């Protein structure tokens, strides 16, 4: 039994003890050795971690966290933990695995052999409002009516125009998201629609794709992008570990 804590990177299905080498978070001044702690066929990917303080989201910690996930992904399907989990010791990790055995197996089955592909579609225009006014005569007429008068529009009128714009934006996002997910239908088992973080974002999607289907997925991005006008920009990324498809809320081990 080790005395130091265990930093947990993620969970994989394996009955063997695996060693992924010294690629983990720093421990004793060196990159920590990454290995598995398993219960039956479910294993946590961990490295020793002695820090008593919280693991800060610093580059020197985030980088190895993600590096380990990437490395493990090469040979196994990993359910990634979110950054910053440190258990007291290996026994705690094992107790947690045991207590959550069923949900862990279910989750590992669901994502087995699959990877995540990210797809963000953006409006590549200077002014999104102008862009929509150009597309929508009703919005344009309303805008012209408000700003074409001799007196300035009231705040209430501006708010109403803003709401009209927002509704139009939401409608457009919804319609295009449906169109895109439909076009990708044959390539994914699950899709997650994340809320757009920026007004120029049309959609922010994550697809769960079979590992062997990544090339076909990428080809599909080019095909689908080709059916859109030039002011739509398709950014895709991956393969990632299935970050967006993890729905686990593990319970702590009973003391």
């Amino acid at each position, binding site marked *: 039994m080790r005395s130091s804590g265990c930093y947990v990177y993620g969970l994989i299905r394996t009955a063997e003890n695996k060693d992924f080498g010294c690629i983990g978070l720093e421990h004793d001044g060196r990159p920590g050795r990454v290995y598995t702690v398993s219960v039956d066929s479910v294993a946590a990917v961990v490295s020793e971690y002695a820090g008593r303080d919280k693991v800060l989201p*610093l580059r020197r910690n985030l980088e190895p966290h993600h590096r380990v996930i990437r490395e493990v992904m090469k040979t196994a399907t990993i359910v990634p*933990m*979110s950054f910053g989990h440190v*258990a007291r010791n290996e026994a705690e990790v094992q107790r*947690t695995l045991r207590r959550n055995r069923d949900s862990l197996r279910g989750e590992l089955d669901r994502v087995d052999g699959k990877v995540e592909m990210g797809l963000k579609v953006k409006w590549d225009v200077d002014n999104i409002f102008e862009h929509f006014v150009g597309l929508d005569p009703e919005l344009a007429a309303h805008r012209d009516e408000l700003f074409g008068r001799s007196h300035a529009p009231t705040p209430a009128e501006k708010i109403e125009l803003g709401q009209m714009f927002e509704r139009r934006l939401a409608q457009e996002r919804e319609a295009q998201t449906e169109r895109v997910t439909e076009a990708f239908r044959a390539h994914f088992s699950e899709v997650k629609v994340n809320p757009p973080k920026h007004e120029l974002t049309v959609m922010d999607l994550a697809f769960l794709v079979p590992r062997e289907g990544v090339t076909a997925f990428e080809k599909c991005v080019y095909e689908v992008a*080709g059916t859109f006008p030039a002011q739509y*920009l398709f950014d895709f990324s991956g393969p990632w570990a299935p970050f*967006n498809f993890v729905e686990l809320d593990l*319970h702590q081990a009973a003391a």
Partner: protein
Amino acid sequence: MGVASPLPPRRSVRGRSPRLLAQSRQRRVSLCETLDRVLNKGAVIAGDIVISVADVELVYLGVNLVVASAETMREWGQGRPPAGCRGAASLASGVTGA
């Protein structure tokens, strides 16, 4: 350490006229995508087993990209003021103009 930062490939395609973005922007955006996933997604363990859960409050990259979401915060029930931004400072030093 000898291990380069592991960023997955990212490409960009414009409707009707495919093109690739400059390498530097690719890496930067890919880093943002990485942070969004690493900090914001993934399995969580509730309760005391965890000595430490990342002191992530709001990590701002560039102007207005919030990486750690309000949901993550609520999930952990951390009502603390955003002191965790001390972590953000060193992060942001390598990530500009998100």
